[in-house]
């Protein structure tokens, strides 16, 4: 086996040193009746070239070469080459959690820089070293609010990513946290009247996403005012981090739960991604996850350590703020490098391009279909309503190696034949024009009723 650095003679010598005759003696503690006396039924040992072939084949079966208009919590942005060059260094890739500060200063300093940049971008005072992803970060942020307010119930915007809502529901069920969902209005924003009605004296947190699932930017100032008036905390989830380059961050929030995938992390069929929680300094001791702090060593030199560990499971056990143990350090490093590459000016220009592409696409679609929620500002996503079933529209597009917007029927049946489209700096005008053309064509054919459309179930 090519990963094992021992010759048969080495093994022999080691057994002899231990005073054993055979390897079986090492496994004597395992009761004989449970020992496996056969080969595992798994694929045989493969050569490296065979493994590479296997995954290349899987890649070909996995949408390779398609142009996509999907967003909805996973965004296709350009990843500067330096990201993979740097994270591939073994010193980053193959290091453990930086408990031994003296030989982990590289990881620790980079996390400290990450925390700083997240604070700058979100307008918050502290940020943790990362969480699993945006969905679990949102759930953990809500539980943080529950601990801070001593209240138990939560009001969630229906315009929050539906899968984030599902994750929160899972976390909340066994915590005995009642969830109330507040709907959205004609403009795609949280319905403030409904919010007002949903909040009670028991509401610990209001959880909204901005830009929300439809790409619409919420009126965070108004939402915060309502939440705070009732003594509830406002948790804002941000799924599209690039928006922070051009959209004012939700500074009125008490906690921000972010998904930073857009910052240099491959879409990778849904993970691994990089959640982050940012908040105000006064709440830091109820914040879950790892934190890096600055200090000095015995010679007075600046250095960094993991800190405030008394919140954590390995010290507090069942009284910890969360059971979270690892964070997403390597992914946070990708995010960190991405933020460093684009920086103060680049992030703004990048966000502007996303905004421009989306504005153009929404404008073009509006000529042939109905683009919903136009009266509130949006960032990079928009909802298109068609006469035809969006699954059928997408079936047509697939024939042209294009993946259309995400059909919303599953999550929002009330929106009818609606789909969520997304553009980024990677979306070309040609691709937009082609997609708009195909949608226009299918709209015409449905209206004239001439053509039978092959309605194939192509999405889940």
């Amino acid at each position, binding site marked *: 086996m090519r990963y094992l650095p021992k010759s048969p003679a080495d093994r022999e010598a080691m057994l002899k040193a231990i005073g054993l005759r055979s390897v079986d003696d090492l496994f004597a503690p395992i009761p004989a009746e449970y020992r496996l006396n056969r080969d595992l039924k798994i694929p045989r040992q493969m050569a490296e070239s065979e493994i590479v072939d296997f995954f290349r084949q899987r890649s070909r079966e996995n949408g390779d070469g398609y142009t996509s208009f999907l967003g909805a919590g996973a965004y296709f942005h350009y990843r500067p080459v330096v990201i993979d060059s740097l994270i591939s260094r073994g010193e980053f890739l193959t*290091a453990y959690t930086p408990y031994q500060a003296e030989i982990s200063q590289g990881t620790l300093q980079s996390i400290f820089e990450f925390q700083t940049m997240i604070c700058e971008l979100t307008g918050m005072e502290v940020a943790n070293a990362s969480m699993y992803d945006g969905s679990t970060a949102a759930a953990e942020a809500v539980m943080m609010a529950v601990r801070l307010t001593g209240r138990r119930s939560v009001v969630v915007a229906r315009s929050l990513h539906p899968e984030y809502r599902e994750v929160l529901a899972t976390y909340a069920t066994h915590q005995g946290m009642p969830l109330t969902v507040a709907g959205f209005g004609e403009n795609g924003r949280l319905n403030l009247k409904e919010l007002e009605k949903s909040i009670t004296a028991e509401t610990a947190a209001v959880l909204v996403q901005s830009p929300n699932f439809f790409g619409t930017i919420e009126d965070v100032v108004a939402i915060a005012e309502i939440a705070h008036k009732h003594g509830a905390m406002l948790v804002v989830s941000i799924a599209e981090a690039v928006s922070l380059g051009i959209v004012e961050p939700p500074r009125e929030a008490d906690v921000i739960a972010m998904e930073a995938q857009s910052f240099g992390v491959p879409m990778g069929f849904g993970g691994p991604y990089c959640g982050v929680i940012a908040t105000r300094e006064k709440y830091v001791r109820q914040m879950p996850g790892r934190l890096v702090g600055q200090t000095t060593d015995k010679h007075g030199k600046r250095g960094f350590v993991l800190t405030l560990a008394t919140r954590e499971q390995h010290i507090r056990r069942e009284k910890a703020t969360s059971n979270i143990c690892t964070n997403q350090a390597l992914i946070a490093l990708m995010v960190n490098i991405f933020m460093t590459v*684009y920086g103060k000016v680049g992030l703004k220009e990048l966000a502007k391009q996303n905004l421009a592409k989306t504005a153009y696409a929404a404008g073009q679609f509006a000529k042939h279909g109905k683009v919903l929620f136009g009266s509130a500002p949006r960032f990079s996503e928009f909802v298109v309503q068609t006469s035809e079933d969006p699954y059928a529209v997408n079936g047509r597009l697939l024939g042209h190696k294009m993946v259309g917007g995400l059909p919303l029927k599953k999550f929002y049946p009330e929106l009818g034949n609606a789909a969520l489209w997304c553009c980024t700096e990677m979306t070309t005008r040609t691709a937009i024009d082609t997609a708009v053309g195909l949608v226009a064509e299918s709209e015409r054919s449905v209206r004239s009723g001439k053509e039978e459309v092959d309605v194939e179930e192509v999405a889940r």
Partner: protein
Amino acid sequence: MKRMTRKATRHVNQNEGLIFEKSSAGKAAWKLPPLDVPEVDTAALLGGVERKDLGNMPEVSEIEIIRHFTRLSTWNYAIDLGMYPLGSCTMKYNPRVNEAVARVEGIANGHPYQPERISQGALLILKTLSECLLEITGMDAITLQPAAGAHGEMTGLLMVRAYHQSQGNARKKILIPDSAHGTNPATAAMVNYAVENLKSDSRGMVDIGALEAQMNKDVAALMLTNPNTLGIFEQNIHKIADILHAKGGLLYMDGANMNALVGKVRPGDFGVDVMHLNLHKTFSTPHGGGGPGSGPVAIKKALEPFLPRPVVVTKTDGTLGFDYDRPQSVGRVRAFYGNFGMFVRALAYIQANGPDGLRQTTEDAVLNANYIRKGLEGTYHLPYSTPTMHEVVFSDKLQAKKGVRTMDIAKRLIDYGFHPYTTAFPLIVPGALMIEPTESESKEEMDLFIEAMRSIAEEVEEDPQTVLDAPHSTRVSRLDETAAARKPVLRWKPTA
């Protein structure tokens, strides 16, 4: 440093400030293509929510970024440099082909919502890995959704709760041995179960008498790590399972130490009902400085209806798809399908090994731990003489007489060119030195480690101050953690 070490030599490394300290207006490491759609008036589009300023975000060039992070990287110790004997962490070699295949275009850029018709590659990876893990564990069904080991624990206990609820009583508490990982009790609390401690016996195993006395119909499950955190296989595992099952309880196995078992014994065969795996331990996905992990949960048939949504199924036309119609599911624990990139790596690792390679891996891991135990027995106090599997736990009892504790020895080990072992865990061994070499260490590397550990023990006798002041060879030494926690500085700020 008085003693010479064969493993390490000091060399110059570069100083480097924070990235913000290198920033100045006008430098850039980015270039966007020309915009092919009309420019927009951002103020008109966004109105009041337009952002004007990005604060103190850095402005640096590409070469500065490369040097910055390369310099930082040289301040880290890593598996690629040498032995990383952290007990319980399984710091094994991270094969590079894993990284290569995770970056193949259609795998790296697959969108989680792309139609199933063009997701067959990803679905087959999910299915194949699931099948391999089920065969390895001897369990019946699996979810890959949890993002890490602790997340897997939560998912497992949610299924335990749902199972008991379906039997008419969710039950009240979880039994947890005193040797358990801190995540176990923290997880039990997260799913609203009370935690009851279970004592270990004099051999370091679950005290069967205590378990019998504590087991009743309020107990939902026992969370057991096997081999436990002392590196000891629970020889009475079948009795433990029987005691639980007789009163309707479930046996949860923390799979953190699965590296001692793969190909030799299967948890499903010795009575485990629910278990999580750590792909970043047993299955070689990189630790990356603290994540991403991945914590699949494997279960017995009776718990299958409660799996998180969605599950991968073969459809009537033979293609693969996701099944969301799972009315008894505990729900979702994460958006999308889990840390897919880690599944790719774990599967590549399983393929590189095959059945013979995985078995040899386990044998070598156990052989290595026993070799170290033999090499250090007598030099360091061994609190439990029960046979060792993949890791061995010593204590600092002998060295403590000179005022030297486990953390001091650990810090001194750094000067000898090694990453320290795990200190002060498990909690049932005061002053623990928990050593897990994994299969990735050669005899030569372990001989150097044993030599270093013996040399430190001699130093403790002759010159304890050298050990107490260690490390002597690092950029920074003994950072002030108390000050860091008392007045937290958690971000850089420009000097006024």
